[in-house]
């Protein structure tokens, strides 16, 4: 499973034989629960997630593999270019200045784009290609378009 800070996903099913999924289920983390990755620990092995009911739990990223999740939102900065994969801008997590800057550059909520490059980010939209800095990309929350 791909992991990134501030990523959100919904658990679709739990494919488990290790006891890990079984325990999550008994804690009320069930298919249908939303999960947000709050922070990723040293070298990515341990992650802190917040489940939609508000409990904060630490898990190992390897064990997350037993969960079949649907990606709901992810910061643009965590993505890499992929031919034909489309995303939609869901929200901005920046201040007024940032919102104004994005608006000026025609980067708006609901804009659908494809990532062309990630050094820096170049997004292909129907109105042309937009360049976005790495710092800015962290504040742009997107969702995949099927």
């Amino acid at each position, binding site marked *: 499973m791909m992991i990134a800070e501030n990523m959100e996903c919904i658990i679709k099913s739990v494919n488990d034989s290790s006891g890990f999924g079984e*325990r999550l*289920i*008994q804690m009320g983390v069930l298919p249908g629960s939303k999960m947000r990755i709050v922070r990723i*620990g*040293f070298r990515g092995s341990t992650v802190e997630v*917040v489940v939609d009911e508000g*409990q904060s*739990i*630490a898990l190992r990223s390897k064990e997350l593999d037993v969960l079949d999740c649907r990606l709901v939102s992810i910061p643009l900065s965590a993505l890499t270019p992929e031919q034909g994969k489309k995303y939609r801008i869901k929200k901005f997590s920046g201040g007024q200045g940032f919102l104004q800057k994005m608006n000026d550059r025609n980067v708006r909520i609901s804009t659908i784009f494809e990532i062309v490059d990630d050094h820096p980010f170049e997004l292909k939209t129907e109105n042309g290609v937009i360049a976005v800095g790495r710092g800015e990309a962290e504040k742009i929350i997107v969702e995949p378009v099927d």
Partner: protein
Amino acid sequence: MSNRLTDMDDKSITIAISSIPNTGKSTLFNKLTGAHQAVGNWAGVSVEKKSGHFRLDGYDVTLIDLPGAYSVTPTSIEETIVSNYLLNTPPDFIINIIDARNMYRSLGLTLQLAQSGIPMVVAVNMMDEARRAGMKIDIKALSNHLGCKVVPIVARTGEGIDELKNAILKTLKDPSLFRPPNISRPPVVENAIITLAKKIEKINPDPVLNKTFIAERLLDSGELPKYTQVDKKILEEIVKDVKHLRAKTEMNLGEDMSVTCAKCRFNSARGLVNEATSETIRVPDKFTNALDKVLLNKYAGLPMFFIIMFLLFQGIYAIGTPLQAIIGDFFTLMQSALHETVIFKSLHPFISNLLIDGVLNGAGIVISFFPLIAVFFIFMSLIEDSGYMARAAFLLDRLMHSLGLDGKAFINILLGYGCNVPAIMGTRILSSRHNRIITMLLIPFTLCSARFQVFVFLSAILFAPSVAPWVVTALYAVSFIMVFAIGFLLKLFKFAGKPEPFIMEIPPFRVPTLNTVSIRAWMEMKSFLYRASTFIVAGVVLVWLLTNLPFGVEPGSINTWAGKIGQFLQPVFSPIGIGWREVIALIFGFVAKEIVVGSMAVIYGADTATQILASITPLKGFSFMIFTLLYTPCIATIAAIKSESRSWRITGISLALGLIIAWVMAFIVYQGGLLLGF
């Protein structure tokens, strides 16, 4: 609460207190029972069983603290204990606790318990924090849906405790106040449960447990109460029916039975939360979020951890160790003073020496650990209750995961560098038995302050002043390396079984209360006194006998039994460069490592330093120090391992592991040194 009735008229009842972890269960337990607590063992497993007493208007209540469990469907040892306890020895009453700030996560268990049919009262804890967050809870709605009395409380301050006792009393006197709630299930599941419940009704002699509850337990996890009176054939038939019904429903619904059951419960829980609360607060509150930004920061997190650990270490050992030394000195003074008294002079010298240098010395060692244990647990409770422990575990998880442990174990091992005894007692906070056992076996390889004294003394005699500090540093390095190497080894051989999956709740930060912290320290001292003292005194007496018998020989000399053992073991110890005199010192070292220095003075006689220098080469000395570092720390550590692991096997393994590894490492050092021409 007034006690109008005399003890004779009081009715004895058992109340179990059960909740998911981190809801303030111990705080409420302490509030209800005060310090009237006893610590035992759950039958068959090495998990602590706490019980206490309190009086409740006409009732003499035994309160059982059930281990924290998310569900009665067991996925861990703790949950198995709770499940077995409820099914086989149902209590008269249950107190369940809900976390007001996050009711959803608590309600899954609450619904299961309520369905059991055992009369229950629910306490909604941490109301103050919920109020502060602007959250309103409709207690009445909760009470209606759960079918029992619900009481808002703040366990930390004692708010609502009287109301809770009142609610218990009322329910005890009027059982109609309690009725198991219904939760909606898919029709297939409902039908299966009804079918099973009918069968159970025929055989179930237990009027307490609800048939539907037993049926759901059977369907969910295949557990059945131990019906000893019932014909085996009937039981086997029921088990067969369950298998069939389960396969049918699982097929029908396309998912695991346990998932379906959990979904039913938590759907009800979600509905209940929506109905009973004005607004759901995000549990990681602003304060917690802000603090976590610093304490769990990618770059600042680890340095902050080491600063906090440094302060903790300093706090514990700067206060505890001098107090230990003071008590030790006091007992030494008392011992020499007693030798001069008329009573002891009138006794046979062997008897008086045995009493003073054996028994009293042992008692002194036990008592000298008290301040250290108290200070240790005060600091440990502070970092645990505040919520920092979970953060530290998060930060160090990567490192400890390589040993199959989790981050919390690191703190215990680190604290072992001060003193092994409280560090081993502290393994109780670890999340699984696997982690506790492995950590317990690793802690004895840490270089504690008592060994440090031996190393400073010997290296000062054997090495040049410019070299000596490096020798001690090298020993620290060896200790670190050995902890990790042995950790890997134990993991490789899956010594304590499979590690449990790692799911750790990160609780919000909270200010610990004086009450909880002090009761904890007091309980630890008490349990150390009860469980370890006989062992320690017996060990000290045994060593005293070995070094003083047979009658009439010079204590600690070659003619004592210890000396004989030393000579007998000569072939074993000569390959590692250790002579019979040092073997005696090592035997003394079982009592406490500090004694090694003193005993060498006895063995070598006057002008110890010159004598030692004459008979021990630096290489032999280093080999001796390596052996001292790695073999069994002291009798108090062994006693702590015994009382924490509750297993002679683990204690024996720890002893053997220490001796074998000490010998092997000393052999490598000594023979390697000889080859290199030292």
